């Protein structure tokens, strides 16, 4: 990355890189675990595969302290409002991981009860297919997410804000 008079200044791009580095190594996950994939999540998180190597091992059980929403397991239509609410409560910056084929597309549960992919409810950054995905697949996916974080632009204050209507923040 050269210093370019057209592009962002040297200082802001260095700052963005620094924030990206900090953010990608401190992805606090919120495990939204609803089904069998949870076992695989536990396997990834515990000592053998050790998510901690990637700075993503400290599950926060409040959405307000989490950066990465790990949606692990089948999401039913009954559960969808809860997932939406948890997502809305998370602060920017946030990333959403669809863990397992159920969350990617609904998987083989093509029926009255199941949401056909959580991207029908909330935006998704990373899809990890598999039923359940092997821990290696999850780690591969996590590294892809870190890559994406490295490549995107960061500022100290996230400027992604919802519009304020009539003095009341709509979220």
């Amino acid at each position, binding site marked *: 990355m050269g210093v370019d008079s057209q592009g962002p200044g040297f200082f802001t791009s260095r700052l963005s890189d620094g924030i990206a580095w900090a953010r990608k190594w401190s992805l606090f996950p919120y495990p939204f675990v609803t089904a069998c994939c949870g076992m695989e999540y536990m396997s990834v998180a515990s000592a053998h595969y050790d998510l901690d190597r990637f700075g993503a091992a400290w599950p926060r059980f409040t959405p307000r302290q989490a950066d990465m929403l790990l949606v692990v397991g089948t999401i039913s*239509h*009954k559960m*969808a*409002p809860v997932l*939406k609410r948890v997502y809305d409560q998370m602060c920017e910056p946030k990333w959403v991981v669809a863990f397992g*084929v159920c969350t*990617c*597309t609904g998987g083989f549960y093509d*029926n*009255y*009860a199941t*949401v*056909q*992919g959580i*991207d*029908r*409810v*909330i*935006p*998704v950054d990373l*899809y990890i*297919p598999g039923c359940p995905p092997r821990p290696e697949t999850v780690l591969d996916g996590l590294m892809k997410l870190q890559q994406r974080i490295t490549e995107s632009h960061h500022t100290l204050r996230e400027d992604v804000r919802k519009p304020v209507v009539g003095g009341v923040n709509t979220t």
Partner: protein
Amino acid sequence: MTEPATTLDDNPVIARLREAFGDAIVETHAHRGDVTAVIAPDRYKEAIRLLKTDAELAFDFLTDLTAVDRLKLKKKPRFEVVVHLYSRKNNSRFRLKTRPANDREPEVDSIVDIIAGANWPEREVFDMFGITFTGHPNLKRILMYEEFVGHPLRKDYPVNKRQPLVPMREIPEDRPNIYSF
């Protein structure tokens, strides 16, 4: 009662039911030692009481209570409530079925006051098939949400019908084709 019999003729449970209910036993069959009797819905509750309280039979454990929608089998009546019972005393199993006459608003007596464990299974059958259990203390949906319309395990429930609670977004264009991995 000793060994559970495999043929119907000498099956003591069937014999006992026939003795007590006569023609109300509509049908019987056995498959690999599993014995089934179909009873008229108006005698169903009595039969459950007999099976449970009779000192010889002692079917004191409800394994499962479920239902079948026989719409696509083109059978009349359409619904069938199936009760699986187990006797700890005799280590034997028995299946009792009953077919509510009304296909539009099927109704069966609740057996919760005889077998308390039937409470949730009856609610599930009500939720999934829309069969009303008269006398049930708390007959409301157990699995689906209150806003859900219809009964999803009925064979005429459209297989692709969804009833989302939150507005559904469009499928994003960048959703990867995960099946091509």
